[in-house]
């Protein structure tokens, strides 16, 4: 493990984050957007763990904040999917471009 330089891990998580942003930008399905957001949070977590492993003076800090990020991600997914279900019940669609009630 020690053999891998920190910059390679950072570039890997950058690519993962970019893939997540791409999904959030181009998906029509709201659930697809939520999945992409989970990917982005996951990339941020990898960064936190890598920094805590390589540079931190108190190595527990990065892992603690990764735990916080996981908790927030779980609440985000739960609330987001509840909103999707409520939306589906009212509008019978989960596609972002068909939800244009407030669009001028």
């Amino acid at each position, binding site marked *: 493990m020690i053999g891998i330089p920190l*910059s390679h891990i950072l*570039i890997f998580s950058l690519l993962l984050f970019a893939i997540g942003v791409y999904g959030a930008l181009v998906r029509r399905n709201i*659930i697809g957007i939520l*999945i992409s957001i*989970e990917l982005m949070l996951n990339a941020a977590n990898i960064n936190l763990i890598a920094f805590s492993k390589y540079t931190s003076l108190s190595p527990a800090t990065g892992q603690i904040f990764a735990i916080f990020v996981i908790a927030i991600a779980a609440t985000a997914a739960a609330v987001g999917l*509840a909103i*999707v*279900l409520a939306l589906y019940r009212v509008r019978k669609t989960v596609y972002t471009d068909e939800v244009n009630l407030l669009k001028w």
Partner: protein
Amino acid sequence: MAAKFGTYAVMAVILIFALGVVTLRNIFHCALCLAAALIGTAVLYVAFRAEYLAAIQILLYVGAVVTLIIFAIMLTEHLAGKTVRQNNSQSPLAIAGLLGFVALLTVVILKTPWPVTQTALKAKVSVMALGEALMGTYVFPFEVISIILIAALIGTVVIAKKDAPEERL
């Protein structure tokens, strides 16, 4: 050497599954790819000597969040139905912008002298140390997270429950 190669292989597999998450047409397959990418990340955490995080990742992400997403997909979509277009027409623009973003940040990452310390590389974080930090230094954020969790729980139930029948006025 083998561990190094294995870690790079895990990274490549995670990226392939992540590409599957954003490109596959069937949203159910996307959710399964997400589960695979998250399991790969847990393997990466084990390689980083963060075993507790790996366990949490499997339990919370792969166990709870992916299950939740699959439930939402099954409640909103007919799996065997016709395949509809999943992407909007902004794909080329998004790819161009993100390539610039990735190139810029790669240059920044490679030019920054990261202060890699030998003490951090040798350090072992036990679950006990994590618990002590959570109950000591980080007890205030811990309480805030608890409040957020309970608020999200109540809010989710309120949003997702069926509306009560109209009250007679």
